[in-house]
């Protein structure tokens, strides 16, 4: 089963775990399974419109899904998804 690496800010919404297993053959399916296991994660990953929040990046293996097929990117049975928060800012 694919597993998902959870960054520290989101672990409190995933039972305190840094890695969670969830079934699925695409990113969309795995994230749907993840958020049904841990419903509190949903609002941190998805916007009210249902898409991935723009501050959330998903990697499958070593690749950012933005450069693959986004949420339709295929996920192998033993593959790792990594959730990477976007960080930016500025003095003004």
């Amino acid at each position, binding site marked *: 089963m694919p597993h998902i*690496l959870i*960054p*520290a*800010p989101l672990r409190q919404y995933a039972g305190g775990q840094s890695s969670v297993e969830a079934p699925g053959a695409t990113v969309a399916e795995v994230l749907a399974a993840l958020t049904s296991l841990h419903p509190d994660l949903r609002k941190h990953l998805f916007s009210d419109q249902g898409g991935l929040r723009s*501050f959330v*990046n998903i*990697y499958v293996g*070593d690749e*950012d899904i933005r450069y693959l097929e986004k949420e339709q990117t295929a996920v192998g049975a033993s593959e790792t998804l*990594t959730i*990477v*928060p*976007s*960080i*930016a*800012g*500025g*003095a*003004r």
Partner: protein
Amino acid sequence: MIEILPAPWEVILGHARACYPRECCGILLGEVGDGGSRRRVTIAVACANAYQGEQSDRFELDPADQFEAQRLARKEGLEVLGFFHSHPDCDAYFSATDLAHSWPWYSNLVVSIRHGGFDHARAFRANEAQTESTSEELICPTS
């Protein structure tokens, strides 16, 4: 409380000076204790500012750099504790822009660089709703 060891502190200041008068940015790795409230930075990773535009008052981390930092942290048995960036010729405050593009839990170190040299630094954490930030006690080498 966040403590920064001398080696990562030198990386942070060196990167901030080298990028002046543009903002620099990077990633803080280290150890956590007391349920996340005590943090010790043992590695600082200097990153390129990925902001497309005028960088004197903006920064953006490339997600690919953060992906690599997460991998390094797991390999070293550490945690990504937060991020650092510089404010060239500005005080080390946590701006509305900083807050809007931050995440809760992480420590955010802001380094003030004036006329190309280190002036002062402060650390901040955003609340869960990202509506406000609080300052975090910072222990760093005297420079």
